[in-house]
């Protein structure tokens, strides 16, 4: 039974992972992740890669929605910008920068471009909030997808037909299979999560939380709303840009419609299901959001045995399940899975005494 979070030095108090349970959990999680490409089959690696990419994007959404309290329904646009920036950078700088360094430059490039886009899209957040901001970001999403599809930019973006993506290459190590790419995705996802956890013990992260809790009070306390709201958008867009860059390396071809409203809703749904404003919330949410369609697919495969009729109703069922997840969690568990797990851990911790 943990009776308190006792510290003897300031250094110990300031650590990102401030008790040994957290440290143990992170080490165990890293060991578990390392086991996936070594022992998992192709299917597991595929799902794990998808989860890793989603996780980075959802962590970004968590920064802006969960921690800063700015409602955004357009984060798929930043994933799109990151993905297209990577591909365009590869095509443009292919001859200039040696192949083995290209990926190492392209990923930061995509992150920076997305962050800049985040600042632009975040501009309305200075004037409007809540619902108006949700619609403003939604509009930004539609506009970005439209610009990507537009004939005018088709020589760079491939227009409606999408564009082939390059293979990642780390100092001569070509990540041509998904198993190899998983290492890159997993390392970046873990770093992204730790960075997010770290962000909220810094001045910036605390300012975000203050803005979420009451923006006017935060302003009176001397937090510049102007600066921190834009910073929040920039950070979350940078996360999404990183996810987009990995997205581009992961798939052989990207299409504009992969980044439409549905992806934005998926990112928000993951954060609602997992638990807003908690680092682990993103993890739980992504696991559920990626696994539920897969489980439905497996169940339908077992039921139908390849029957065409059942296969046809699978896609709508997946869509309904996705909506039902959002609605169900909002109605019955508004703080998400994180809350359920917290409750379970607390009960375990106090056992056999009071529960709940």
């Amino acid at each position, binding site marked *: 039974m943990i009776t308190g979070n006792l510290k003897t030095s300031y250094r110990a108090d300031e650590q990102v992972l401030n008790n040994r349970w957290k440290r143990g959990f992170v080490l165990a999680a890293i060991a578990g992740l390392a086991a996936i490409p070594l022992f998992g089959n192709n299917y597991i690696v595929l799902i794990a890669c998808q989860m890793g990419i989603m996780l980075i994007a959802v962590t970004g959404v968590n920064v802006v929605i969960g921690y800063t309290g700015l409602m955004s329904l357009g984060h798929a646009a930043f994933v799109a910008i990151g993905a297209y920036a990577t591909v365009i950078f590869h095509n443009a700088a292919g001859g200039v920068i040696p192949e083995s360094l290209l990926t190492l430059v392209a990923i930061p490039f995509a992150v920076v471009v997305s962050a800049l886009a985040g600042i632009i899209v975040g501009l309305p957040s200075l004037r409007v909030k809540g619902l108006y901001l949700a619609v403003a970001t939604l509009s930004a999403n539609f506009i970005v997808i*439209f610009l990507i599809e537009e004939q005018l930019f088709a020589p760079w973006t491939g227009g409606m037909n999408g564009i082939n993506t390059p293979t990642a290459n780390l100092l001569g190590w070509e990540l041509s299979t998904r198993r190899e790419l998983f290492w890159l995705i997993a390392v970046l996802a873990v770093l992204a999560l730790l960075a997010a956890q770290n962000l909220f013990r810094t001045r910036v992260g605390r300012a975000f939380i203050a803005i979420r809790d009451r923006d006017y009070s935060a302003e009176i306390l001397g937090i510049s709303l102007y600066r921190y709201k834009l910073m929040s958008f920039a950070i979350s867009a940078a996360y999404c840009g990183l996810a987009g860059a990995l997205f581009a390396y992961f798939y052989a071809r990207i299409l504009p419609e992969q980044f439409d409203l549905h992806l934005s809703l998926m990112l928000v749904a993951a954060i609602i299901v997992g638990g807003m404003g908690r680092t682990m919330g993103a993890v739980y949410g992504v696991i559920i959001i990626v696994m539920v369609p897969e489980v439905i697919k497996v169940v339908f495969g077992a039921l139908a045995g390849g029957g065409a009729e059942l296969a046809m109703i699978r896609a709508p*069922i997946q*869509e309904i399940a996705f909506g039902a997840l*959002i*609605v169900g969690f*909002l109605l019955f568990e508004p703080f998400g899975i994180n809350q359920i797990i917290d409750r379970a851990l607390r009960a375990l911790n106090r056992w056999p005494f009071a529960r709940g």
Partner: protein
Amino acid sequence: MGQFLQFTINGLMSGAIYALIAVGLVSVFKATRVVNFAHGYLIMFGAYFYFTFAVLVPQMPFAPEWLQSWRPEWMLAMRADLPMFSPMAAVLDWMANLPRILLGLAGALVCNALLGLLIERALMRPLMGQSVFAMIMLTVGLISILSGAAQLIWTSDAEFVPALAPNTPIRFEMFGANIFLFGADLANMAIALLIFLGIVAMVRYTKSGVAIRATAEDQSTAYSMGISVPTVFSRAWVLASTTGAIAGAILATRNGISPALGLFGFSVLAIVLMGGLDSYLGVFIAAMAVGVLEALTQWKLGGEWAGIVPYVAVLIVILIRPHGLLGSKEIERI
């Protein structure tokens, strides 16, 4: 100049339909402070219900002959003497469809009203008093549920649905320019405007309208003054879903039925924010302006550019006037 007038009039006609859809969003917002992100999907359901009752039901074996195509003796006699493509012939063709049009509209209205009630009762009411964020996200979840359900229920390919009014071509001259319109479009515009005005009048002058306005002003005060706020909520949802049903029927006759109808709701959402969420007049102006701008964009830049006009317009308006053209400013207490 002639082209300009023609496209402006086309724009006004689609603007009227935008206004009709927007009225549902505004009503729900006024009563419940919730913006329904899934409104476009309610419209889609309205369109599918209209299709079901106007096309599928009359084809069923138990349906009487006259429901499918109503052709009494006197109509056949009149039809026989008319030349091809005369306006009267178009009117008579429409009259033959009249029974199923009425059945379709009635069915769409009733079914959509029930759907609206169900959503309000089962999903929105348990969240009453909770944060608005949760309610809005709930309507976002509703998007997926409704769009998946529509694909499950109506698997058949959408067919031609009968227009609400005789589709006679109308030509006339205005400022020396030839204008060419379809009768059905004109009638749709008239229907949309009449319903819009009717709802504005209802909210202003009737008892239940006053209840809606009182609830919009202050929920708990309205409650303590004896207004049943839950009833106001369900009334607002029924209002939204029934106007959505009519808009859906109109859109089905104009653009055909497809799951893409749901996306239409997002452009209307942009229009509503542009006009100001709680102002019928502002929303009306915004709807007409976006309709005209869209038509002019289509004329000058091509069809695909027209799709993003509402979104660009709302971004510009929000940046200059954060509460829309005529929306009332929210006053916050710290």
